[in-house]
């Protein structure tokens, strides 16, 4: 009953940086056995940074130098034991290493191979070199974001974590399909298409209206007040959104603007927007003397949406994330402890997530090569010597 949902699933994770590793991470925390494979010859570029410690929670990690031809049989043996292979090299790289889907299915007919790349694995632009931050621009995602002053937005690392969540979703759908049909799957995933699909309403809006959605900052066509207001302290802001006239009246009473309560000049979004500058100034005068969290609690107590706009260090301090168990304690090999994120859901009938600190490269070499694959100890040592296991 309390067994984790994905126990018994084995995933070989050749992916690196963010999108692929986080997809495998979601499944590892839900009980799948994830074996990360990489080489010191060209380590996962994320290795040196702190985020690596989260992207790779609860995984095994063995070293294998895929540029050495003697590694191929070992990789194939490992894949033959697995349900799923994940890779996110540039399109074509995994094929050229000799691990195309047709080859893999010779060894494991029902293997599920997930290949994620910037623009997918077919089509005229499949070889485009991509970074997630650039894809935000390429896919139209950024064109609907901004203050509305004509300047493109510059920040954001949106693509990879979004893609990571979608990759784990489609992997699970393929695994479930295989349980019923017996069929494996090759999944050719395009990060660019994923971002474009996430702005589908703007795409339809354009076709229907002939107009491009203009970035409008924190505003909304459907609600007003709806935006950010300044609070006490440098760069402290609170979001406030008024949903209907009852809330508007209650809000006005709270901020001592009784002249606007039950006032027919202010009882629709359009009418209120005519007084936008005046209303915004009054709200700002009220918020700017208060702490952002205080405004949240005061307004939420009467059912009005409000929340502080937090920088990431304040997110990490938010008490709700500890109460819910989203931030949970991890013990590292050197005995240090850290509160690190788990997953954004709770299953009512399972116990805790499978949680362990991220491994270092090679930590699982003996477990995987000697115990799982049964490689002879002498040969194993020789493979290390020859930098095949490296």
């Amino acid at each position, binding site marked *: 009953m309390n067994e984790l949902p994905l126990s018994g699933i084995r995933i070989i994770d050749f992916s690196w940086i963010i999108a692929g590793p986080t997809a495998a991470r979601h499944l590892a925390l839900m009980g799948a056995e994830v074996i990360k494979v990489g080489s010191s010859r060209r380590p996962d570029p994320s290795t040196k940074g702190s985020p690596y410690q989260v992207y790779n929670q609860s995984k095994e990690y063995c070293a294998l130098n895929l540029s050495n031809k003697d590694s191929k049989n070992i990789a194939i043996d490992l894949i033959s034991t697995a349900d799923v292979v994940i890779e996110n090299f540039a399109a074509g790289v995994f094929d050229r290493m000799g691990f195309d889907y047709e080859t893999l299915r010779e060894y494991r007919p029902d293997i599920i191979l997930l290949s994620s790349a910037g623009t997918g694995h077919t089509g005229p632009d499949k070889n485009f070199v991509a970074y997630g931050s650039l894809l935000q621009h390429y896919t139209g995602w950024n064109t609907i974001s901004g203050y509305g002053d004509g300047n493109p937005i510059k920040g954001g690392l949106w693509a990879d974590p979004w893609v990571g969540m979608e990759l784990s979703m489609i992997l699970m759908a393929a695994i479930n399909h295989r349980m019923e049909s017996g069929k494996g799957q090759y999944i050719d995933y395009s990060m660019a298409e994923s971002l474009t699909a996430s*702005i589908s309403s703007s795409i339809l809006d354009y076709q229907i209206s002939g107009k491009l959605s203009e970035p409008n900052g924190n505003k909304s066509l459907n609600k007003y007040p709806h935006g950010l207001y300044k609070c006490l302290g440098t760069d402290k802001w609170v979001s406030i959104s008024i949903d209907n006239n009852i809330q508007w009246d209650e809000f006005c009473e709270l901020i001592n603007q009784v002249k606007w309560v039950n006032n027919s000049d202010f009882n629709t979004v359009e009418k209120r927007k005519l007084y936008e500058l005046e209303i915004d100034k009054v709200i700002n005068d009220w918020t700017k003397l208060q702490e952002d969290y205080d405004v949240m609690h005061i307004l939420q107590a009467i059912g009005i949406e409000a929340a502080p*706009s937090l920088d990431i260090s304040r997110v990490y301090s938010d008490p709700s994330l500890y109460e819910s168990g989203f931030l949970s304690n991890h013990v590292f090999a050197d005995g240090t402890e850290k509160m690190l994120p788990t997953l954004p859901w709770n299953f009512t009938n399972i116990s805790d997530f499978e949680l362990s600190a991220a491994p270092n490269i090679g930590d699982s070499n003996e477990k995987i090569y000697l115990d799982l694959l049964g490689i002879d100890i002498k040969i194993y040592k020789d493979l290390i010597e020859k930098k095949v296991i490296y």
Partner: protein
Amino acid sequence: MDSDNATGLLGGLKVLELGSYVSAPYCALTLAKLGADVIKIEPPTGDESRKEITLGLNANDKGISSLFLSLNHNKKSVVLDLDILEDQKRFLKLAESTDIIVENTPIEYLRKRNLDFDKLKENNASLIMISILPFGEGNAYSDYVASDLSLFHMSGNAHGIIGPVKDPDTEPPLRAGGYQADMVAGLTATTASMIALHKKMKTGIGCHVIVSAFEAMVTMAISGLANTAFGKPHPTRKLQEQEGSSIGGMVSAIGGVLPCIDGFVAISPREDAQWERWVEMMGHPDWAEDERFNTRSARENNVEDLWVFLSEWSLTKSKYDISRDGQNRRIPCFPVNTIEDLLRDSHLEYREFFMNIEHPELGLLKYPSLPYKLNNVTVPVPSRPAPNLGFHNKVFFNETGS
């Protein structure tokens, strides 16, 4: 599940959506696109997204906003008033033969009507229910309300997205356009539903999953969260205090957006070798030899001057020519596409990314399909646009839709 007429990965899967606006409808949409049979339960007033004011369909009373259209194709619409006993019974009946219920009703809404998970599983022991709540259950904010605006801001994502500004006290953090926080909650719910389905297929046991939209959005900021956990100070939004790459790649010498004749091009010749190829592409201008620009760290220290020179050059060129020439030299660079550009993009056309669905009033429109290709299964071709309110009541209850 009925595997005889399976199509797509989820053929035969029965899904009930008790969803409003974006998150739960987006979750159920993905399940529908993958082949599930989705019945959307709407109140007599309809899903609130039907009334969303958008550019295309302003405040119309037909209940077909662009937002609603984009999230509800290939579903069946059934109207139930869950405040009246007869419709509560109908809901219970539908739930008996359902694999997955996806819902985003307010907390306690279903319990108050005695339609919560514990009640529903009495007649369906293997039922899966996915509940999307703004802040999950069992913490100090569980009763709080939140929409896209608050979720984007409270999760830390809004501080990164705009890039550095001159004055953080007058230029606020920014939420992204569209409905990204709600989409993230819906996507996260979809992943959770597939994990729960796996457990059900293995054990026959269903479960109730609570998805926290806030935590789903915090998961999108996971890199920054990890940096904080390991003691790295959070990046300031103030331009003058900004270090090289600290906000993640789209400002400073490692990448940015250049103006062109026909829009913008996003470039990132960040490594020295990429930069050398980039300079070659520009025809080796004299300024590139300058010591302010000849190493990566020098470029990072002189990024404003660098961008002036680059912009002078790019303003005489097309975004397509620059990105094509750059990509031919293995330099990461892309045109900044408008939606019009996307709709006629030859690569997306080759991959048949957009699919046409005919709408009786609006005609043929292009919708994004799934962003992945599957080799061993035929994904059903969506053919039904978002349904009119209650269109399928007559199918299920032998009555005329409202």
